């Protein structure tokens, strides 16, 4: 009897360990739904918080731009209404701080690479776009263990869940994976990313940036601000769109009302 019991326990232990070892091979799980966050730009009367846009721009510039391009955003949009609200002089200064690959012209006489093989550059002007951190895709992949950091210009429109999804990713690092889940080499656990193995290392830490307006730079704050900035980067016309929409719908309501009254009057004796 005891032998049987001992053998059963031994068998159970053996099977349990075997199955545990087999279970250790889960490398992909469905993502959690994005965190439920409300944004200042949500809803029919949404708007961008100017201070948040400027702080978010700082986070992008100092943290994200090391790997992620922002190809579609031109420097001249930085001082346009509905945006971060920089002055024209500030926007020009920001542009001038970037090195843009130069075009062939009389000054460089068509020599686009210097003697060390580096691309000849010029200071950015307000008409230029944010230059990418890598000259091409293979270079980007080589610097990131084979992964390609996506361009962020329309990232929030390109992902289901939008701003809340990006916020969840940025603040979703540091969690312990469930038992049996394997984090693959050169990847990190993030439960909000499809498959939960994300190539991006946690980009934000407390104090990654020092905000000039004195706001405390926690991971949550940095994420919130950069998400707001990226929302504007993807939809610079959002405020104008909602403003115009209010006028159009108000107009159509009045016009419908007048047409309805006309309809009733015309049909008065026909019903």
């Amino acid at each position, binding site marked *: 009897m005891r032998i049987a019991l001992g053998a059963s326990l031994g068998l159970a232990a053996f099977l349990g360990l075997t199955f545990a070892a087999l279970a250790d091979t889960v490398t992909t799980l469905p993502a959690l739904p994005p965190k439920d966050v409300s944004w200042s730009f949500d809803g029919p009367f949404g708007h961008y918080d100017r201070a948040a846009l400027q702080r978010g721009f700082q986070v992008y510039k100092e943290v994200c731009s090391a790997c992620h391009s922002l190809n579609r955003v031109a420097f*001249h949009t930085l001082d346009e209404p509905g945006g971060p609200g920089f002055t024209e002089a500030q926007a020009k200064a920001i542009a001038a701080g970037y090195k843009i690959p130069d075009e062939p012209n009389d000054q460089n006489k068509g020599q686009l690479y210097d003697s060390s093989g580096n691309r000849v550059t010029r200071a950015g*002007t307000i008409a230029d776009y944010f230059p990418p951190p890598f000259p091409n895709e293979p270079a980007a992949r080589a610097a990131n263990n084979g992964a390609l950091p996506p361009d962020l210009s329309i990232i929030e429109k390109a992902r289901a869940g939008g701003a809340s999804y990006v916020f969840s990713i940025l603040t979703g690092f540091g969690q312990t994976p469930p038992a049996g889940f394997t984090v693959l080499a050169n990847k990190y656990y993030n439960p909000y990313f499809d498959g939960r193995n994300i190539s991006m290392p946690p980009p934000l830490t407390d104090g990654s940036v020092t905000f000039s307006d004195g706001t405390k730079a926690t991971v949550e704050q940095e994420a919130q601000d950069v998400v707001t900035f990226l929302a504007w980067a993807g939809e610079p016309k959002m405020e104008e769109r909602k403003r115009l929409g209010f006028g159009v719908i108000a107009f159509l309501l009045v*016009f419908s009302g*007048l047409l309805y009254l006309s309809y009733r009057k015309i049909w008065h004796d026909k019903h």
Partner: protein
Amino acid sequence: MANVTSAEPNRRDFLYIATGAVGAVGVALTAWPFVAQMNPTASALALGSIEADITTIQPGQQVIFTWRSHPLFVRRRTPKEIAEARSVPVSALIDPIARNANLDDNAPATDQNRETKPEWLVVVGVCTHLGCIPTAFEGNYGGYLCHCHGSQYDTAGRVRRGPAPQNLAVPPYTFLTNTRIKIG
């Protein structure tokens, strides 16, 4: 339909007139974006002004930049060229108006009215006859010769022999520093 037609619009017709008027306004407001979309885009407008670095231009040399899809001549004049331009009375010119966007429309075409700094001539490189690009340092007046139909300009870019009717246009520009000009 019950006919109540009267000579002048009465209260019953007011509704239809109001509805029609609101509708017409709506049509006009709706048409505006379709018209406006053909205007230059924000990126084109951002390129509407350029900054030119003039450090490397020697006296007697010209560099061509592109401004608003046109060639822009930035020419560093020698003292001889400046003196030549100043020796011409305005009455001897085909076009007595300065055509300088930085000045009044009626300013006379004295050499002083054609430049901000006498050494630097900044003009749009488009012949005022039919739009060809004149060649620098050619022609009898030391300024420009347009090969298309033979117009000649002097060292201040003023037309001296036709068929061009006007002096080369001077665009709006300012010296940001001694070595940098902002045009437009």
